[in-house]
């Protein structure tokens, strides 16, 4: 399974449609403080079904929608598309390419799509169950997570082990 392409529209600091293509190797993401790098990571967690707003550095889910600048109005919706190559048949689905789409409207309504077919959040999460890629993935290490893994005060270390088991 390979992340092939990521598209963000109206997600956090990305008001306009932004596309990132990935290959199989090491992709570096660089830029000054506050330019949007960690927001890209958030978008990947979000499209894979993350529901914990704190993990997305937000108090409510509406905060992932582009909230405007001095010159741009807030958008009414956030949409992220993730295209995955199912090149080793890891995912329990017959397609070679899988497109996962998540949308959130300011009204609070959400929409989810698998290969452009409307589905439930549950369907997306079940797709990745047991691949280590779910929203509780141990494969996404955010700024500050090192300390929570080592801390005796949080449950993070234990959940890593439970995810893997």
């Amino acid at each position, binding site marked *: 399974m390979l*992340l092939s392409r990521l598209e963000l529209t109206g997600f956090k600091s990305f008001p306009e449609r*932004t596309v990132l293509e*990935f*290959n199989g190797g*090491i992709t*570096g993401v660089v830029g000054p403080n506050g330019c949007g790098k960690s927001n890209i*990571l958030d978008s990947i967690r979000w499209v894979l079904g993350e529901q914990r707003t704190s993990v997305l550095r937000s108090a409510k889910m509406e905060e992932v929608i582009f909230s405007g600048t001095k010159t741009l109005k807030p958008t009414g919706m956030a949409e992220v598309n993730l295209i995955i190559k199912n090149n080793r048949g890891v995912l329990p689905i017959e397609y070679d390419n899988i497109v996962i789409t998540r949308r959130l409207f300011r009204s609070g309504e959400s929409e989810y799509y698998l290969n452009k077919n409307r589905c439930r959040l549950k369907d997306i999460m079940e797709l990745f169950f047991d691949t280590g*890629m779910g929203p509780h*993935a141990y*494969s996404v290490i955010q700024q500050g997570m090192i300390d929570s893994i080592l801390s005796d005060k949080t449950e993070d270390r234990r959940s890593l082990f439970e995810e893997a088991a």
Partner: protein
Amino acid sequence: AEQRFLKTFDAIEKNYQNVFSKLFENGEAHVELEDPSLPLESPIRILARPGGKKLLSVAQLSGGERALTAISLLFAIYLVKPSPFCILDEVDAPLDDINLVRFLQLIKGFAKDTQFIVITHNKLTMEASDILYGVTMENPGVSKVVSVRFGGGNGDGDNN
């Protein structure tokens, strides 16, 4: 469920020592259940000893040593249950140059089977990347992505 957890736990423990010693020459690391009779509830203890040093508590380790101790554990878990991709957000920040190089070698080893996305401010990490995306905010509050390539050609943004 208990059996499966214990089986996974043991596999992670075996790998932990291997990965840790790639980052810490002559180092030693273990994970253990504080209460082996309650595997599904017991807290998990980490024991980590950098090379040449005596075993002390994880709290006494330095900032960089803690980062590598946690990174080793994560990679030990990937060996047991490979993740198709792995996203790292500035995990290299507390590392000195020598540890950074070891960390990058570790990543390159894993990169044959795992796709990595690495967010970084560090030039050595940028050089280790196959492709590089630069994110900018020329228009305040509006992010924009440009791809940056090495070895001539597309020199948008940084010349790193």
